């Protein structure tokens, strides 16, 4: 929907097991472990927790029409499982780095479970190898009743262009709150599909994307929030700044199913094209099958706000600085709060 992609770029042919490693900041990791939680490597589904295995199975069943997901399931399973038990609030932000060392194409899976009434902040950083390769990353997660997950995902590549397929499906239960940001700071081609399912009453999700496209990057990102219960709340905010010959395509979908009365869904996606050969589009969609809801969307593709630029220049700032301020200003709504504050 909206994203025109060439499956060739992201196909699963000849995926092999590869070398990767993970590490986390010790303070947060100890806090997690002391609370009975864990991060565990798995090399086959046998090594998953019962809940993890169940989550993965139901995810695959629910996505039988998703070709990439099916192909992913045919690769050998490897990845990480993170479990936070019920009624735990982690004070420290968990900073998780996953580094791919070899240049082989890899399929990697991560399972996340935030227990009922728990709270955590998680930042995942995916580091690519220095040479070009292809990574297919799948995340399945559950944010249980009354819990809160603040999730920041970053893809970080070096100088070489990479090919990335990023699929992530998160489920929110009763009154759970998800605040999720995605920053694909990697060169090359990125196809991202991020789905949040608001399964139970009162759950809410905010999904933000911030993207700087350069050179001949091609980035297609779809954010879908699926309201399946009453009084659910969602926001999608996407911002992309495009340089050189970058292409960025954003699709945001707010889906409100029958029975999800009192749902509130809004989305705002904007692209700023800095250079004349950059291009992109934003496609906001609302699919609504219930009367008693609030929903809205806004979208734009444009250049600098001329009026604001003029205002800044009129105080004496040189053009390059004034433009940088406007770029930061444009990105501000999707940046994590702590990098904005000082």
């Amino acid at each position, binding site marked *: 929907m909206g994203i025109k992609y060439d499956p060739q770029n992201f196909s699963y042919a000849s995926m092999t097991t590869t070398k990767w490693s993970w590490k986390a900041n010790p303070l947060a990791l100890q806090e997690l472990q002391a609370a009975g939680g864990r991060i565990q490597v798995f090399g086959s589904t046998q090594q998953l927790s019962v809940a993890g295995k169940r989550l993965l199975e139901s995810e695959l069943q629910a996505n039988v029409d998703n070709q990439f997901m099916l192909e992913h399931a045919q690769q050998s399973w490897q990845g990480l499982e993170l479990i936070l038990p019920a009624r735990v609030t982690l004070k420290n932000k968990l900073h998780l780095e996953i580094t791919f060392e070899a240049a082989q194409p890899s399929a990697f899976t991560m399972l996340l479970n935030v227990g009922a009434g728990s709270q955590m902040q998680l930042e995942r950083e995916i580091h690519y190898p220095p040479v070009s390769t292809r990574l297919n990353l799948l995340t399945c997660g559950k944010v249980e009743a009354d819990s809160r997950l603040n999730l920041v995902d970053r893809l970080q590549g070096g100088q070489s262009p990479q090919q990335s397929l990023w699929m992530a499906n998160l489920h929110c239960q009763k009154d759970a709150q998800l605040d999720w940001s995605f920053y694909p700071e990697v060169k090359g081609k990125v196809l991202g599909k991020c789905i949040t399912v608001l399964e139970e009453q009162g759950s809410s999700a905010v999904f933000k994307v911030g993207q700087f496209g350069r050179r001949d990057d091609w980035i297609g990102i779809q954010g879908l929030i699926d309201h399946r219960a009453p009084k659910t709340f969602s926001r999608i905010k996407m911002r992309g700044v495009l340089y050189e010959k970058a292409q960025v395509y954003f699709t945001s979908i707010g889906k409100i199913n029958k029975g999800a009365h009192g749902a509130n869904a809004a989305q705002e996606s904007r692209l700023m094209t800095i250079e004349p050969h950059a291009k992109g589009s934003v496609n906001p969609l609302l699919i609504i099958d219930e009367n008693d809801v609030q929903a809205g969307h806004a979208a734009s593709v444009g250049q600098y706000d001329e009026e604001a630029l*003029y205002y800044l220049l*009129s*105080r*004496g700032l040189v053009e390059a600085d004034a433009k940088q301020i406007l770029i930061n200003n444009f990105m501000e709504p999707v940046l994590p709060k702590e990098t904005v504050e000082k």
Partner: protein
Amino acid sequence: MSTLLIKDLKVVAGEEPILNGVNLEIKAGEVHALMGPNGTGKSTLSETIMGNPLYQIVEGQIFLDGQDITTMSVDERARAGMFLAMQYPTEVVGISNADFIHAALNARNGNQPVAILPFLNELKQQMDFLEIDEDYADRGLNADFSGGEKKRNEILQMMMLKPSFAILDEIDSGLDIDALQIVAKGINAMRSDEFSCLMVTHYQRLLNYVVPDVVHIMMGGKIVKTGGPELAQELEKTGYADLSGAVEGSDND
């Protein structure tokens, strides 16, 4: 030194002629008021002096201290000492008020960074003077400021940047009585031999607090009458109707 000299200025916006030959001289140390009905070109003149690209000069020149500035860019004019308090200041959420003013000072200082502590001290002092709450330093530039707060913030920027020539476009509109006095206090604090100013206004009440040296009346894209402060007072009684003859007269030449 801060003299502004405008010679036979003709300006269009798009295809539309708006200014039809403006002549104006403001000497160093003087405060001039510019009045006139809605839509006569007061903001157009202000914006053209600042260099807003929406307005094209088709004839005439603008000199600041003897230098023709018509080919200078907006930021060059600002660094040359010019300031425009806009009728509708823009909001830029992504930079704090304080950071922005500091960045502007650095730019005016030839990109030599202005020491931060003295800067913050002075900012605090001027904010106190203008009775602006301390919080406003860290809020986004004009972000969610009320109309009156934005105007006060324009004066704060002027006091911090210390231009030699300032244009204040309807700085008094939307201000309550107390705010008007505070803004007037700010403008008066700037008055010196080194500073000159063009104030666009519709109302005598600002001129009660900031007494101008000269008053101009603009109609139909021209200055049709110039006088002392008493001209504004007369206008208060008679309105612009009596002057429409002057416009026709000037159209015929």
